[in-house]
């Protein structure tokens, strides 16, 4: 199963993925395009109720023009759900000083034969990258756009493709 979720205007979206059958695999791809003033809230829950299931969550987003981005993710593995493999990744770019980001990657693990991990980052655009592009005659605004596109590309490509 592949779940795709894009939040391109203020609002709230919940994605709950229940794993009920052995061997089930699910992927969640999320984009949070926080380009306007307002609250953007994305909440993903991976509920492993049975074992031998595999999940992947990849969320990327940015916050700009007063956007307040909140991304919460939870990998929950029940006691009997052995041999689960799940990874939760959330990355947010902060593009101006009017915006903010809250990221809460959570794990609740009650089985021991599992692999569960997460990674989260909040960062700004690397000045060196901007400088490099500027040296090639690309102005700041355009450069920023290119960098953001590149940052989101992994997810946007996957969302577009129908694999």
């Amino acid at each position, binding site marked *: 199963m592949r779940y795709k979720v894009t939040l391109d205007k203020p609002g709230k979206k919940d994605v709950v993925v229940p794993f009920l059958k052995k061997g089930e695999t699910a992927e969640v791809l999320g984009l949070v395009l926080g380009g306007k003033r307002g609250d953007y809230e994305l909440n993903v829950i991976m509920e492993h109720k049975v074992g031998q299931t595999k999940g992947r969550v990849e969320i990327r987003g940015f916050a700009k023009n007063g956007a307040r981005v909140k991304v919460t993710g939870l990998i929950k593995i029940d006691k009997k759900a052995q041999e689960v493999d799940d990874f939760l990744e959330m990355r947010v770019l902060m593009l101006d*000083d009017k915006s903010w980001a*809250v990221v809460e*990657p959570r*794990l609740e693990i009650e089985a*021991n*034969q599992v692999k569960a*991990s997460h990674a*989260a980052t909040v960062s700004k655009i690397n000045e060196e990258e901007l400088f490099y592009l500027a040296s090639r005659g690309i102005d700041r605004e355009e450069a920023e756009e290119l960098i953001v596109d590149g940052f989101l590309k992994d997810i946007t490509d996957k969302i577009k493709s129908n694999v």
Partner: protein
Amino acid sequence: MSSFKYVYKSGKGLNEKLVREISSLKKEPEWMLEKRLEALKIFNDLSLPEWGADLTGVDFSNIHYYLKPLQNQKKSWKDIPDEVRDTFEKIGVPKAEREVLSGVKAQYDSEVIYGSLKKSLEKKGIVFLSMDEGLVKYPELVKKYWGSVVPLGDNKLAALNSAVWSGGSFVYVPKGVDVGLPLQAYFRINTERAGQFERTLIIADEGSKVHYVEGCSAPAFSTGSLHSAVVEVIVEKKAKVTYTTVQNWYKNVYNLVTKRAFVKEEGEMRWVDGNLGSRTTMKYPSCILAGRKAKGEMLSIAWAGKGQHQDTGAKMIHLAPETTSQIISKSVSKEGGRASYRGLVHINKGATGAKAKVVCDALILDDESRSDTYPTNKIFENGASLEHEATVGKIGEEQLFYLMSRGIKAEEAEAMIVNGFLEPIMKQIPLEYAIEMNKLVEMEMEGSVG
């Protein structure tokens, strides 16, 4: 039976009369009594946190809040009653004092009963007193800083501590002085249904450096005790403070502690936190990084065995530009134990160039046990960066197989792997404690592999 008699032992339960009694026994100034009474009101008004560990087993009406073992603090172990001295001998406090420490405080239930500080350090102006002595000898400093980092109403347990506090340490390190060897405080709860509420205030003046170590233990009782401390640390400009805790309370103690440091320009605060004992611990040492380039660090180990819930973590509050913080947390849960990491990184507006990193690793050793990770990362400044990563897993089969192929028994191999997993933090813990912790891991791992 014990021949040892307490000088004063309060009945069970908490009320205004008891708070007045504690303050009057300690001959405190009026302002401190007022703080205590105000805190008591807040304690009664606040409810227990709805998040975190289950605290329904704490019966506030069934605890002895104040137990005074001796009339005065002693300067020589010879003056300590045999029974009390033996307790500390067994833990190895006097030996460590001779060999590896700058100074020692030993607290037995509610009061510090022994204290020492190397003469050479005293001459440099270093102050290492019990909090009670500190209040008598340095009333201005105490009045200025007491409750300034952890306010009375910070949370219900901090309010409780502020109302009935007794003992703890008062440390002042003058400008530019490096204390060298660690100062150590040892806390012992020795009575059934006892509450221990030590209060510690550490002030590291500009450019100074100090390492404070605390150890905690309690004997086996059938009923639970409550340990609820408040620790406040002031890290002045360019000062460096390390605060190490090795908590090995007996497995029916509730350990609910508030620890926080206020760090000024280019100051460095490092918490090293080992939580091995207790039934339930809730503790999230914090750094308020208030000055430019202030640095906060947390290295923590949590061990959750049978019947234990370690709900621990850290908070890093970035208020100024170029502040940096790092949280490294490792936990092991086994035999139905639960280890939860709970943390906050808050990067405030204006903290440009702030950097924070959080790494949480957890090992779950059997299918009875549980591990949770509850991080909150709030970024209100765009010129800042945060990285967070966490993993939960089991002991690698390959590692185990490799060690066993070298003739190491499964049990031993597993202990080696767990020790290796904890090692990066163990390295930061003073040697005698690190040895104790290694032994503990080995002991706890005995018979664990089926």
